[in-house]
């Protein structure tokens, strides 16, 4: 379980500018094995929230309690000198696995994730969707109880993004992990989350906490999905 209690975080302004208050008194809990989607406008402290959960930053006030978390950054950031297989096994190599043992561990996942035949491909030979799948696999295989996903599909085109949302939804259904998914796409949040948390603009605070009681696989045209999307948008201050 992740417990965040009254967390504030302020960054010193650049070159003597005004300090930037990213989060103010933010509280939220995420149950074990729950997928929480956090939505908010750009620059509402979403990335800061993930970095607090991952232990990459300390809060100025309040407390963050979280099991170990692995990050999936916005861009895939695959290493160009490694094959797709070795990129996906990066966390295993860091954990001390020998090269071949790491590859053996990753191989079955390539089949499950529809990456068969691309084991030896270099990142620049992969499509955007495949790169994102390899990047997700890399984070998944770190074996941490919590996955912190930072706008994983923001860089993809609309069609690939829709495919990848369906794919991630299936992948998460099979994996018992606690997931915090940050996105600026309200529809994505409703499609993927067990709960949708809406953050206010800077300084970020939770302004709505919506449970998504819709069976998976979810359709974007499902009236319940459309309604939740409208409620989230209203909470964001966007006229529906």
């Amino acid at each position, binding site marked *: 379980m992740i417990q965040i209690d009254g967390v504030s975080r302020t960054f010193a302004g650049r070159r003597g500018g005004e300090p930037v208050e990213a989060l103010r008194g933010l509280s939220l809990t995420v149950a074990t094995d729950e997928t929480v989607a956090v939505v908010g406008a750009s620059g509402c402290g979403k990335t800061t929230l993930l970095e607090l959960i991952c232990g*990459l930053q300390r809060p100025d006030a309040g407390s963050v309690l979280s099991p*170990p978390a692995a*990050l999936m*950054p916005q861009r895939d950031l695959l*290493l*160009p000198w490694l094959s797709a297989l070795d990129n996906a096994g990066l966390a295993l*190599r*860091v954990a001390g696995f020998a090269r071949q043992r790491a590859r053996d561990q990753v191989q079955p996942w390539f089949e499950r994730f529809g990456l068969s035949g691309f084991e030896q491909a270099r990142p*620049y030979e992969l499509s955007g969707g495949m790169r994102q799948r390899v990047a997700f696999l890399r984070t998944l295989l770190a074996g941490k109880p919590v996955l912190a996903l930072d706008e994983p599909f923001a860089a993809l085109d609309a069609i690939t993004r829709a495919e990848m949302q369906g794919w991630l939804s299936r992948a998460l259904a099979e994996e018992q992990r606690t997931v915090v998914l940050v996105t600026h796409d309200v529809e994505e949040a409703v499609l993927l989350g067990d709960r949708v948390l809406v953050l206010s603009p800077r300084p970020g605070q939770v302004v709505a906490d919506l449970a998504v009681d819709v069976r998976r696989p979810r359709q974007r045209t499902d009236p319940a999905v459309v309604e939740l999307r409208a409620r989230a948008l209203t909470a964001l201050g966007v006229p529906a």
Partner: protein
Amino acid sequence: MRRWLPPALALVVLLGIWELYVKASGVNSLILPSPTDVLRALIDDRGTLWHNLKTTGVEIVCGIAIAAVAGLLVAVLLHFSGVARRSLYPLLVASQAIPIVILAPLLVLWLGFGLLPKLIVIALVCFFPIVVTTLGGLQTVEPDLIKLLRTFDSSRVQTFWRVELPSALPGLFTGAKLAAVFSVIGAVFAEQAGSNSGLGNLLELTVSNLETAEAFATVVVLAAFAILLFALLTLAERRALPWVHRQRETPTR
């Protein structure tokens, strides 16, 4: 082939104008030899030129190798230690302002006419570009990538070996390519300060004997050697770091 054509044509045109000017103006070949005079000197003196090129070539290749190893080590030190970076980097910059013309004769005075003072001069000239470009590569690794590795519990040393060092290799090659060009100038200064063979030594002799065509021929050999080194390093880079080129050719997304 297309890429060869424009520089080759430009060279031919320039040499043609030069040749015509020398022929038309009747200028003394001791003052300005024509391209054909230089070509003749190249052919006539090929034995001497080759012999001296071997000396200078060894100095340059060894000098660059020393600078590459030392440059990489110093770049890594500066990368890991903020104290070292703040205290040593300005000194490194200052060291580049010492004129080699002053330093080279002093080194000969201290260390004699052998190989060592040449290696020091060449390595000094090559060291700085290698440190700067390698350090640049080490320091511009994506911060998000470092964060990702931290969530994988990667130690500082692991992150260095797995991500930072491979990221810095293109910078190291860029530095070495710059060094290849500077090294030739360094070698000439070092040999002119005191030596009994080498192209710089030959240049010193031919200039003072007013063998101008021979001096030009020596410069041609030096330039060709610099181009050869540059091309070899470019080739080695493509072989060793194939992703650098492939990535540039294909869109990343």
